[in-house]
């Protein structure tokens, strides 16, 4: 099984162009320029939109350029995917575009171990089923959301419009680099690139202080994670002498063998440290527990950005990183448990916060954090296919949810408070949005037979299957109920019930379509044209064709994602794709039931190891090893039943309870938009709802823990600087001045004084001469 990657990786040589055959299962290729174009097209779009900005284009041209480029990228991705990864068997291949970084240096005679003395990081793309899958939904969603944004951002046509789409395209480019990178350095480039674009787009409304603050917060917190990632990459290079995946996995092989035998003690500490550092990077980018606080604030950006970057794609980069370097995570007995616990706690915590929020976009943000926790748990409980499947389904339905929220926000002039909106679905022109929302909510809540239901079930079931992670499973199950509750709380409050609304204070609608000059100087010029307080008499305007088309497409796709579970083998096509990638080759429990069936693909030895169930033990982290060593390893059960089967019913039940509670509290008998039955229940819960609404005061805690000490320290340093350092500098400047002041009177301008001084000098000189001469 280990050999799989090695054997199938073929470094594409440009020289062999034409000689190679383009078989579906055979990836022996040349530089596949269509693959390079997947990356190049978004970059081209970025350049062109930048050009539009330079030419002061006021039309929707940047949007169409972006949509066309991204659609082209999506088409190429689909073509590549169809050509290489549709079959039962797929092979990873590398597309070399150009040499990027090549360093070599003299051999260090004191170096220990096999050291290669060069650093090679080519601008090359490593395409396997994982990256292809990822690129498929990244480019697809990006195309749809760009189309959506073409209408959503239309109030800002002009420089801002160009800026938005330039950053948008740049984001897709960076994401493509991240996902398709052949080495960790290129991944890091994409990693930082998406971080930059995230910063640029969160701070899109740069005249709004909260947006600027949110952008800075996101950027700075991401820096912490990025530092860990950078250290991890460096450590990988130090330890393995390479940053290229194919070589890296080959080099890591001996340690993987050790881990398989359960000899974690023999694996060097440095190697075990690598996954922990990578984990830190993943937590930063994917908004997990210590570092999640930036994501809810990131909702200050335009909604399409929230949908694409902060829900569907960028925040899943952490999941991708772990999936990509999954073999390394198996080398440490603490890395995966840590990921599991962090993911589970994040899921629970953010779900509780989401329950108490009133801003629907913010609720969606917390649900994103929560679902990301699910994905991490999926990876950590040895079900990478479950985690990745959840990434895919979540990408669709969460994008759908965000875009629906965005449509509401767009139509109601920035109104996002669920206490001020009700019955939106019954208004004319809002039917598509309402149904889109419903489908998204059903998915998120894990309603039976939706895609979200199946992907969540995979994770939940594996949590109970994998020995020792049942606690994680229970937490996740609880979270599933909470998720269903807060999801349908939004739906029941906003989209159904009595029709009532209150316009927001952002005035998108009235001047929409007018020939309104949006200069840069006006900035966010559509806002506050009519003052803040009198929004009530403006009519909401229903979304136009672009938004409706996108919402409908996404709704269909969200539903269609269910199909992925039923086609293409056991546990669906996604599981198959994941198994064929780097994330798959040590996730035995994910398909232990069908291990024999998969074995022929992977080599006899690996297949046998997996089928016997012994291989499982080796990769179960330390906290279950005790049980593993008792002898016969048995997969966990859910009260004696097979968790996979049980979960179909249990999670459906939990979801139904959550939905019913939401219905009872927020829809049944509700007469107004503002008040609901839940209000009566709140006092009974004591201070908890307030705390949850205050996000458990994590921000304040961080503020106290990090910002305040830094503030104090910086002021101390400021004092040191202004008094000590500046004092020294000033002293250097002032000393000659003071000396001059002392000496200056001697320059009286009087002849006599000078003569006297000269005579005195002569005396001194003669005395010196006399002393020296005799």
């Amino acid at each position: 099984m280990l050999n799989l990657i090695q054997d199938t990786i073929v470094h594409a040589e440009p020289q062999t162009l034409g000689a190679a055959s383009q078989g579906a299962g055979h990836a022996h290729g040349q530089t596949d320029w269509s693959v390079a174009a997947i990356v190049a097209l978004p970059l081209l779009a970025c350049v062109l939109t930048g050009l539009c900005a330079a030419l002061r284009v006021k039309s929707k041209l940047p949007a169409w350029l972006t949509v066309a480029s991204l659609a082209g990228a999506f088409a190429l991705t689909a073509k590549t995917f169809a050509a290489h990864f549709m079959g039962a068997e797929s092979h990873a291949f590398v597309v070399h575009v150009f040499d990027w970084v090549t360093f070599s240096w003299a051999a260090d005679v004191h170096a220990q171990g096999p050291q290669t003395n060069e650093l090679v990081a080519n601008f090359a793309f490593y395409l396997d089923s994982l990256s292809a899958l990822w690129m498929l939904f990244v480019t697809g969603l990006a195309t749809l959301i760009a189309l959506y944004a073409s209408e959503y951002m239309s109030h800002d046509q002009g420089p801002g419009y160009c800026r938005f789409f330039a950053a948008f395209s740049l984001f897709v480019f960076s994401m493509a680099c991240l996902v398709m990178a052949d080495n960790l350095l290129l991944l890091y480039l994409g990693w930082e690139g998406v971080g930059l674009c995230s910063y640029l787009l969160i701070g899109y409304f740069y005249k709004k202080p909260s947006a600027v603050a949110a952008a800075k917060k996101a950027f700075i917190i991401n820096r912490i994670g990025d530092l860990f990632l950078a250290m991890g990459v460096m450590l990988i290079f130090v330890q393995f002498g390479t940053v290229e995946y194919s070589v890296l996995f080959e080099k890591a092989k001996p340690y993987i063998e050790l881990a398989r035998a359960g000899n974690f003690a023999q694996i060097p500490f440095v190697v075990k440290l690598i996954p922990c550092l990578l984990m830190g990077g993943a937590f930063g980018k994917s908004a997990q527990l210590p570092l999640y606080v930036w994501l809810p604030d990131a909702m200050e950006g335009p909604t399409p950005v929230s949908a694409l970057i902060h829900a569907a794609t960028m925040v899943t980069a952490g999941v991708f990183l772990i999936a990509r370097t999954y073999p390394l995570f198996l080398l440490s007995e603490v890395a995966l448990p840590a990921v599991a616990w962090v993911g589970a706690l994040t899921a629970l915590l953010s779900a509780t916060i989401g329950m108490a929020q009133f801003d629907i976009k913010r609720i969606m943000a917390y649900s994103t954090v929560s679902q990301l926790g699910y994905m991490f748990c999926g990876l950590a409980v040895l079900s990478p296919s479950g985690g990745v499947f959840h990434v895919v389904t979540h990408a669709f339905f969460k994008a759908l949810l965000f875009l629906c929220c965005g449509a509401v926000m767009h139509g109601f002039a920035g109104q996002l408070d669920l206490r001020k909106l009700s019955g939106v679905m019954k208004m004319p022109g809002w039917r598509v949005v309402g149904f889109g929302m419903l489908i998204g909510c059903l998915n998120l809540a894990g309603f039976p037979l939706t895609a979200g239901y199946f992907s969540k079930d995979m994770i939940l079931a594996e949590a109970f299957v994998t020995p020792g992670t049942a606690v994680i499973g229970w937490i996740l199950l609880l979270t599933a109920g909470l998720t269903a509750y807060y999801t349908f709380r939004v739906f029941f409050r906003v989209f159904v019930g009595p029709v009532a609304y209150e316009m927001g204070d952002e005035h998108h609608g009235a001047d929409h379509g007018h020939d309104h000059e949006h200069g840069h100087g006006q900035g966010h010029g559509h806002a506050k044209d009519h003052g803040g307080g009198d929004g009530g008499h403006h009519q909401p305007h229903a979304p136009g064709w672009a938004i409706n088309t996108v919402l409908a497409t996404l709704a269909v796709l969200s539903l269609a994602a269910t199909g992925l579970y039923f086609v293409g083998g056991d546990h669906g096509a996604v599981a198959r794709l994941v198994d064929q990638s780097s994330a798959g080759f040590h996730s035995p429990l994910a398909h232990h039931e069908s291990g024999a069936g998969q074995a022929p693909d992977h080599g006899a030895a690996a297949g046998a190891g997996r089928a016997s169930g012994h291989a499982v033990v080796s990769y179960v982290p330390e906290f279950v090893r005790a049980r593993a060593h008792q002898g016969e390893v048995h997969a966990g059960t859910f009260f004696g039943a097979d968790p996979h089967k049980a979960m179909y019913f249990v999670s459906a039940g939990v979801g139904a309870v959550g939905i019913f509670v939401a219905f009872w509290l927020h829809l049944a008998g509700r007469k107004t938009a503002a008040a609901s039955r839940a209000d009566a229940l709140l006092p009974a819960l004591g201070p908890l709802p307030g705390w949850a609404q205050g996000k458990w005061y994590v921000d304040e805690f961080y503020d106290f823990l990090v910002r305040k000490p830094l503030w104090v320290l910086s002021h101390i340093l400021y004092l040191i600087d202004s008094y000590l350092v500046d004092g020294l500098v000033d002293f250097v400047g002032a000393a000659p001045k003071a000396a001059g002041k002392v000496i200056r009177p001697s320059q009286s301008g009087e002849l006599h004084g000078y003569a006297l001084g000269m005579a005195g000098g002569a005396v001194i000189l003669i005395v010196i001469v006399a002393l020296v001469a005799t």
Partner: protein
Amino acid sequence: MSLMAVLAQAGSPAPMAASTLAHYLLVSALLLVIGLIGFVTRRNLIIMFLCTELMFQAAGLAAVAFGRYHLNLTGQTLVIFILTVAAAEAAMALALVVLLFRRKESLNAEEWQDLKG
């Protein structure tokens, strides 16, 4: 023998004792110091220049005395140049003094402090 011959030990000058030289040098030093003190203490520009002339005298006397001691005429030649320079200095300095006096109607050297630091 005229008085001059007596005074000048005319004919072949006898070698001079070192102590005699010291006498002359003492007088020369006294003149120099008095000139210096005068230059520093007096405010009248003309008297200041007179004091410089005093110092020239001292220098000339020392030069001639040394020349006499060494039976060398260069000392006297030096006095010729001292005279020359003194004359040139007097011409220039006095012309300047006249101009300065016209400017301020005063010979006080302390009136001129434009180079004060």
